[in-house]
């Protein structure tokens, strides 16, 4: 049995410790906001927070996630400045990559509430979006940063 703490809730799952965390979150625990995109850590669709840091859950063995605090898109409050900015800027098109983008952006603003354009590019260039919502993502992060600074 593997014990996990996700979004403040405890879970027990009967899986082998080498299974990627992504598939345990999605297919076993049915927290489906976290998406599969490439399986090699090149697209960012599966991004979650592990102890507050953005991680690619497809590259993280579930056994190594034990005893750590995991946060998924479902664990980010609906009134979080990043989620609000994403809605205000109307970022998503197909929407599939967006949970990963949001998790990456939340981690970025947690670390630097006032990121420069360059820092935004650096932090976000690991997350692919085939619909091409990048200009909207950039705008939303800037808007969210203003909110974070205010609070």
């Amino acid at each position, binding site marked *: 049995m593997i014990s996990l703490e996700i979004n403040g809730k405890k879970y027990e799952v009967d899986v082998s410790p080498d299974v990627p965390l992504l598939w345990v979150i999605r297919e076993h625990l049915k927290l*489906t906001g976290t998406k*599969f995109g490439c399986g090699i850590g090149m697209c960012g669709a599966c991004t979650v927070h592990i102890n507050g840091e953005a991680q690619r859950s497809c590259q993280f063995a579930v056994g190594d996630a034990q005893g750590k605090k995991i946060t998924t898109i479902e664990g980010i409050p609906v009134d979080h400045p990043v*989620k609000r900015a994403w809605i205000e800027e109307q970022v998503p098109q197909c929407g599939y990559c967006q949970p990963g983008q*949001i998790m990456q952006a939340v981690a970025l603003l947690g670390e630097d509430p006032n990121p420069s354009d360059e820092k935004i*590019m650096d932090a976000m260039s690991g*997350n692919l979006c085939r*619909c*091409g919502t990048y200009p909207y993502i950039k705008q939303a992060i800037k808007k969210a940063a203003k909110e974070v600074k205010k609070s």
Partner: protein
Amino acid sequence: MTAPLITRRDLLKKSLVGVGLVVVASVTPGGYRILKAEDASKEPSDACSLTLWVRVTPDNVVTVVLNKSEMGQGVYTSLPMIVADELEADWKQVRFEPAPAGDPYKDPLMGMQLTGGSTSVRHMFEPLRKAGAAAREMLRIAAAQTWGVPEGECEVYQGAVRHVKSGRSLSYGQLCEKASKLPIPQHPPLKKEGQFRFIGTPLPRLDVVEKVNGSAVFGIDIYLPAMAYAAIARPPAYGAKPTAYDQEAAGKVAGVFKVTPIDRGIAVCANTLESARKGKDALRVKWGPGFQPDMENETLEKTFNEHLGKPGVTARSQGNIAKALSEAARKVQATYFLPYLAHTTMEPMDCTAHVQKDRCDVGVPTQSQTGVLMTAQRVTGLKPEQIHVHTTYLGGGFGRRSEVDMVEEALQTSKATGKPIKVIWTREEDIQNDFYRPGNCCRIEGAINEKGDLTAWSHKVVAPSIFARVFPQRVKDGVDPAAVEGIANMAYEIPNLQVEYVRMDTPIPVGFWRSVGSSHNAFTVESFMDELALAAGKDPVEFRLNLLKNHPRIRRVVEFAADKAGWEKSLKKGDGRGFAYHFAFGSYVAQVAEVSIQEKEGAIKVHRVVCAVDCGPVLNPAIITAQIRGAIIMGLSAALRERVEFAKGRVASTNFDNYELLRMNEIPEIEVHIVPSKEEMGGIGEPGLPPIAPAVANAVFKASGIRVRRLPMQPMVLEALKKK
């Protein structure tokens, strides 16, 4: 399913229990007709096609049932906007539901339930307006009857009817029961221009909140009770057959309960995804050589070049091309080469199916409900009414999800096991088993007279045929319409024009990729146009305008883009500005790109793109702008570096480490200008893509003197710089 998905039967039931008002816009051979659900359900299905259901219920909710798939292009917002505007609904009360699959929901103009060709709004505009208007009139009359006042004294506004004199008001929810008993007006008055409240405004999308909070259900998010997973070992090379595999070893993997050969490979079925994948690895399949074991990038290019020398079929011919070329003051000739491209939707292919004795359910992110239904009938032998197709959100489509290969294999494995089965492709499977944007090779010859006017254009296209497989009835006289679109119908006024097509068959399957043939043809036409302008000693924009004397709509969009971009203004030394124009899917698009080339690394940096689009009347400008920006980015990604690699008779590209897409650090500033237009409505999902590759190529020439004649251009430009 994690979200309740409705079936056609549920929908009929819901509509017939007398809850609220349900209006159906129906398409008959005689034109549009509007019916109530109970009447519609009595009509034989071949005489009447129910394309839309608008439901107004006592909870004061307006639900629009949609026969088009949401793949990012915004139809779950734009189509409800059309209904809500004519209905005079309050936008806050509007909801949507995906329609089930079936004849009644076919696109009236396509004869299929299919989302593609940038047609959703264009094809659904008229029936949706009528349905909304009919429901509005019935609600208004219901209110007048309730109050015993003349209809003319009742006004509708934001989901309610008001009696102006007395100040009384009733909501649509309160009126819907009574309205449902009234006869349906066949010719409800439609709003006039200037009366629209939603149409033409940037209303926020209805799907954004659930896509932000992570609850939106995509195909990969479907769960059924007792569901199992299948992983499929697929032929590595085209046409390869398995010669041996270790079924016993796979069967020993914990959780694996069935190993079964299916049409596309060997399926390993297991209780969990990880067991299915482990089982697939344990199979250790040995494969035969396939159709063309020596096929690779170089042999393919050689085959393209050989086909250039073969006679083609004529797609367009006017004037006397031989005479015009022989009398030319200056002749220009060039050969262009474009690669195969993969769709790489962010959600890899997936499908969930449950085949039972007398019922079949398919949950799938699809662009083609008709294709899914036909496949399910073929695999299961069940009747259409026993098959229930549940359309989820699509994690990208771009044409890939108009195919049903993933549906067939989910159905076959479910049929073989009797269990609900979910198939999720790996990214490697997705990239290696695509229906690719075809590779393309062209030779173009042009003639210029002494005055510098273009007198002749001869264009020979070599490309595999998409239509030969998908819609063979549309291949006329041997011409694949996609292979020559944007060339055979180009508007430039050239007295002597010839377009030839040479079909090239390879084992590589090809399919619709956002903007289809225009994705390569805009590049060759618009690049060559700049080559000719240079030979004629003319400004590229002026050169084009001279060829568009009888095309005021195109002239306007060309001038609009040039003006907004500051075409005449000088640039920093080393920067280049390029122009391109293209017509596709009913819309006219012109783009100006500004680039520079980093001296040391040779990297092409696109700084700014200015785009003008004339798509006729505008439904939602925010969605249009987002679609155009997205299409430019996808087109730029392909233009700069996308190319499917082939080796040993197979696709050698595997994942995003070797099939690289454009990332956020490389996107330019993109300005989109919508040209005010009252002309015919055009599509918007695809037309933004084609002009970007030639606009950038033409800018690269201005910046560096390097003429890009093959894509992707980043490696090509690097090579040219090394030779300099």
